[in-house]
C-alpha cells in the first residue's frame, strides 16, 4: 500500500481591503460651519437695516438752520457706523439743497419785486447774490449753491422778460378794449340825446369806426379774448347803438305835440311805442297803422334802423325787449294815472251819495295806501280814531257810505283774522268798525237798519255772535274765547258737552234742531232754520243756550228779511231790498226788471210777477228767475226771464265814466291855462311877470 499524503490547497494571508470610514464627522463640521456663516450673515443684514434706519433718523433730526433761520453747515454726528453715514449723508445733502433753494428763491422773489419788468437789473443783482452765497457756503455745497442759483436766475430772468412783454401787450389790449367800451357809451349817450342818425351823420360814422376798432382789437389781441368775448363786444355795440336809436325815437316821440294832451297823451304815446317795439321785433312796419308809422317817422324812425344791414333778428329781438321795458314804464304810468282818475271819480260819486262797486272801493283804498289786509290791520286803530285828521278820508269812506266794502276790509272779518285781532287786542275796534259800517239809523227814527256792505252772511252771523258775547257777562277775554272755540272744535267730547248745554225737556234730551226752531220767529222758513242749523252748535257750545238763542234771533232779523218781490211769504237772504239798500239803486233795479216784464207781456213786479233767487250767485249781487203767480217762468221768446243787479252796476259805471270825463275836461283846461301862462312868460307879458314877482315877494 502506497503511503497516503495530505492533499490540500496552499493557504496564504492576503490584503483584506479597505473599509471607508464614515463622513459623519466631516458633515457635522460642515453643517456647523454653514450654520455659523448663515447666522453671521443674517445678523449682519439685520444690523445693516438697523444702521440704515439710524441714518434716516439722524438725517430727519438734522437741523440745517440755526434758530434765527440762517443755514448752518455741520458734519454728521460722531460715532455713526459707515452704513448709517452712507444712508444719512444723501438725505442731509438734500436738506441743504432744499434750504439753499428756498433761500435763493426767496431772494429771487424779493429781487423780482425790486426789479419789476427789469430783467437785466435782476440778473446783475441776483448773480452778485449767488456769488456771495457760494463764498459763504460750506465746501461740500458750494457747487450746489452755484447750480441752484444759476437755475433760479435763468427762470426768473426769462419770466421777467415774458412779464415785461406780456404786461405791455395786456396794457395795450386793456387800453383798446376800454376805449371801445367808453366810445360805445359815449355814442349811446350822444344818440340818446338827439344826435342825427342818418348814414352821413357823425353818430353813424362813429358806429362804423367802432366796428372797425373791434376788428382791429381781435386781430391784434385775439389770443386775449375768449371765443364769445369778441362776438359779445360786437353784439353789445350793435345793441347799444340800436337801443340808443330806439331811445332817441321814443324821446322825440314823447316831445311831439300830438302826445302832449294831459288826458290821452301818454296812452297814445304808449300805443306808438308799442308799434316801434313791433317794428323792431318783426323787422317790418307792414303790420302797423299808417298813423303810427307817421308818428314814428316824425320822431326820427327810418326803416333802415330795422334792416338786416344794421341788425340781425336776434339783435332786433333784444332791442325790442329794451323798448318793451320803456313801453311797460309808460303803461305803468298810464295805469297809475287811470287808477288815480278812477279814484278821484269814485271819491266824487261817494261824496254825492252814490254807491260804487267793490272794485272802485278797492282802487280808492289802494290809492290811500291800503293795499292788503295786513296794512289795514296795522292802521286800524288810527283809522277808527275820530281825533286823527289824517285818516279821516278813509274813515269817511268806511263809515259814511253804503257801497260794498273793499276786499281788504272784508278780509278783516274772516275767522282767522278775527282771531289775530283778538290776540293783538284790536278785536273790539274791528267790531266797532263792523257796527258802524253796517248799521244805519232809519231816517224816520224808527230804528236801526242794516246794510250788508258786501259782507257774506257767515260774517254777519259771526260778528253778531261776537257782539252778543261782548254785550253779555263775558266769561273770558276775546283771546281766550278763540282758544276755547278752537279747543271745542277738536274736543272728542263735543257731542256730550253740547247735550249738557242744551239740557233736558222732562226726561227727553233737547235736540239742536228743536232748539233752533224754538228760537226763530214763527214765520221763519225751513230755509232759515236750515241756514242757522250750521251755526247753532258752535253758538250753544261757546255761549250757552240762552245767549245762543239771543244771537240767533238777532242774526235772523239781519240776514233774512221779508221781500215784496220774492215769491212766497217766507223771509229770505236774497231779498232785492237787502241787496240794493239805496233807494236809487232799488229804483233802477225795479225799472229794469219791469222793462223786461213789459217786453214779455202785461205783468207787474210784486203784483203778478215775482222773483225766485238763484242761490249760486250769492246775496251780494243776486240773480233771480222771474215767475208768475203760479211759479211758472215768464218767457221772453224761448228764454226764461232773468233779473239781476246788472242794470244797477251799469248805472254806477255810467255815473263813474261821466265823472271821469269831467275830470279829463278839467285837466285839459288846466293844461291850456298853463300853456297860455308859459307863452305869456315867453312873450314877456308885463302883467304876468308882475304877478309872478308879487307872488314871489308874498304880497
Amino acid at each position, binding site marked *: 500500500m502506497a503511503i497516503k499524503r495530505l492533499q490540500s490547497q496552499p493557504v496564504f*494571508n492576503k490584503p483584506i481591503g479597505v473599509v471607508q470610514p464614515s463622513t459623519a464627522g466631516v458633515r457635522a463640521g460642515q453643517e456647523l*460651519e454653514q450654520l*455659523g456663516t448663515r447666522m453671521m450673515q443674517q445678523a449682519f443684514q439685520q444690523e445693516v437695516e438697523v444702521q440704515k434706519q439710524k441714518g434716516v433718523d439722524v438725517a430727519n433730526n438734522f437741523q440745517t438752520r440755526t434758530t434765527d433761520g440762517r443755514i448752518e453747515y455741520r458734519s454728521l454726528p460722531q460715532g455713526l457706523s459707515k452704513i448709517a453715514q452712507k444712508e444719512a449723508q444723501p438725505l442731509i445733502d438734500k436738506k441743504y439743497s432744499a434750504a439753499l433753494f428756498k433761500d435763493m428763491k426767496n431772494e429771487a422773489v424779493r429781487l423780482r419785486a425790486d426789479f419789476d419788468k427789469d430783467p437785466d437789473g435782476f440778473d446783475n443783482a441776483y448773480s452778485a447774490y449767488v456769488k456771495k452765497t457760494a463764498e459763504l457756503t460750506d465746501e461740500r455745497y458750494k457747487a450746489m449753491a452755484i447750480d441752484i442759483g444759476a437755475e433760479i436766475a435763468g427762470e426768473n430772468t426769462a419770466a421777467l422778460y415774458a412779464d415785461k412783454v406780456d404786461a405791455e401787450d395786456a396794457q395795450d389790449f386793456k387800453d383798446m378794449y376800454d376805449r371801445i367800451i367808453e366810445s360805445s357809451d359815449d355814442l349811446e349817450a350822444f344818440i340818446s340825446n338827439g344826435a342825427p342818425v342818418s348814414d352821413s351823420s357823425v353818430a353813424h360814422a362813429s358806429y362804423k369806426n367802432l366796428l372797425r376798432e373791434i376788428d382791429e382789437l381781435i386781430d391784434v389781441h385775439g389770443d386775449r379774448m375768449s371765443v364769445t368775448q369778441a362776438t359779445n363786444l360786437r353784439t353789445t355795440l350793435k345793441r347799444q347803438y340800436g337801443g340808443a336809436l330806439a331811445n332817441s325815437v321814443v324821446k322825440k316821440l314823447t316831445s311831439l305835440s300830438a302826445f302832449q294832451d294831459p288826458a290821452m297823451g301818454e296812452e297814445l304815446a304808449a300805443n306808438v311805442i308799442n308799434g316801434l317795439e313791433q317794428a323792431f321785433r318783426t323787422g317790418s312796419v307792414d303790420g302797423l297803422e299808417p298813423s303810427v308809422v307817421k308818428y314814428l317817422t316824425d320822431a326820427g324812425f327810418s326803416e333802415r334802423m330795422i334792416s338786416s344791414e344794421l341788425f340781425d333778428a336776434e339783435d332786433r329781438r333784444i332791442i325790442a325787449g329794451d323798448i318793451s321795458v320803456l313801453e311797460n314804464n309808460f303803461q305803468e304810468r298810464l295805469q297809475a294815472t287811470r287808477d288815480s282818475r278812477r279814484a278821484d271819480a269814485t271819491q266824487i260819486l261817494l261824496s254825492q251819495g252814490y254807491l260804487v262797486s267793490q272794485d272802485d272801493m278797492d282802487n280808492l283804498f289802494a290809492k290811500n295806501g291800503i293795499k292788503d289786509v295786513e296794512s289795514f290791520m296795522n292802521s286800524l286803530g288810527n283809522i277808527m280814531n275820530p281825533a286823527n285828521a289824517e285818516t279821516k278820508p278813509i274813515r269817511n269812506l268806511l263809515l259814511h257810505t253804503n257801497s260794498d266794502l273793499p276786499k281788504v276790509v272784508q278780509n278783516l272779518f274772516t275767522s282767522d283774522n278775527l282771531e289775530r285781532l283778538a290776540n293783538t287786542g284790536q278785536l273790539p275796534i274791528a267790531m266797532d268798525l263792523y257796527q258802524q259800517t253796517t248799521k244805519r239809523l232809519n231816517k224816520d227814527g224808527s230804528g236801526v237798519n242794516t246794510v250788508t256792505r258786501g259782507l257774506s252772511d257767515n260774517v254777519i252771523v259771526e260778528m253778531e255772535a261776537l257782539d252778543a258775547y261782548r254785550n253779555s257777562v263775558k266769561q273770558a277775554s276775546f283771546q281766550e274765547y278763540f282758544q276755547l272755540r278752537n279747543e271745542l272744535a277738536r274736543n272728542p267730547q263735543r257731542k256730550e258737552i253740547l247735550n249738557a248745554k242744551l239740557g233736558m225737556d222732562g226726561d227727553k234730551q233737547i235736540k239742536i234742531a228743536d232748539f233752533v226752531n224754538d228760537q226763530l220767529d214763527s214765520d221763519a222758513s225751513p230755509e232759515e232754520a236750515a241756514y242757522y242749523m250750521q251755526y247753532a252748535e258752535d253758538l250753544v257750545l261757546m255761549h250757552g243756550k240762552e245767549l245762543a238763542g239771543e244771537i240767533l234771533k238777532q242774526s235772523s232779523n239781519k240776514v233774512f228779511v221779508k221781500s215784496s218781490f220774492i215769491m212766497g211769504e217766507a223771509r229770505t237772504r236774497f231779498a232785492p231790498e237787502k241787496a240794493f239798500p239805496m233807494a236809487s239803486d232799488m229804483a233802477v233795479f225795479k225799472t229794469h226788471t219791469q222793462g223786461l216784464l213789459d217786453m214779455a207781456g202785461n205783468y207787474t213786479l210784486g203784483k203778478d210777477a215775482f222773483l225766485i233767487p238763484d242761490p249760486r250767485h250769492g246775496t251780494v249781487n243776486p240773480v233771480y228767475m222771474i215767475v208768475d203767480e203760479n211759479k211758472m217762468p215768464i218767457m221772453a221768446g224761448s228764454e226764461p226771464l232773468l233779473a239781476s243787479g246788472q242794470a244797477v252796476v251799469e248805472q254806477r259805471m255810467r255815473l263813474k265814466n261821466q265823472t271821469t270825463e269831467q275830470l279829463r275836461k278839467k285837466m285839459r283846461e288846466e293844461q291850456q291855462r298853463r300853456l297860455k301862462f308859459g307863452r305869456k312868460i315867453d312873450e314877456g307879458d308885463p302883467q304876468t311877470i308882475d304877478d309872478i314877482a308879487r307872488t314871489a315877494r308874498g304880497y
Partner: protein
Amino acid sequence: MFNFLAISNPALMIAGAGLSIYGSMQAGKAEQQRQRSIAAQQEQNAKFEELSAIQAHNERQSRLASLMNVNEAVRAKSNRGSNDRSLAALTKAEKKKSATSDGRARTQSMLTTSRMRYAASDARASGNQAMRSALFKSVGTAINFSDAYGQI
C-alpha cells in the same frame, strides 16, 4: 430665563463667525482622521500583501524541495548516480522554472504592495489637505466677519 432674541446683532455675528470657524476646523479634522484611517488600512493591506508573497514563496520553495527529494529518492531507487546528467539537467530545469516563478511573484507582490503604500500615502496627504483647507476657510470667515463688523 435668558432671552435669545435680546442678543444684539454684533454679538450674534461674533457667535456666528466663531461657530463657522469651529465647524470648519472640525470638518477638516474629521476628514483628516478619516483619511488617516484609510491610510492605516492601506498600510496594513501592504503588509498582508508582503506576508502573502513570503508565504507563496515558501510554498513554492517547499514544493521544489519536495520535488527534489522525490527525484533524489527516485534516482537512488533507480540507481542512478549523483552525477546522472539527465537527472541533473532535470533538476536544474526545475530550479530554473521555480526561480522564474519566484521572480515573477516577487515583482507582482512588490507592485501591489507599492500601490497600497501609495494609497495610504495619498490618504494621509488628503487628510492633511482637508485640514489646511479648513484652516484657510476659517481665515476667510474671520476676514469676512472683520469686514462686515467694520461696516456696522
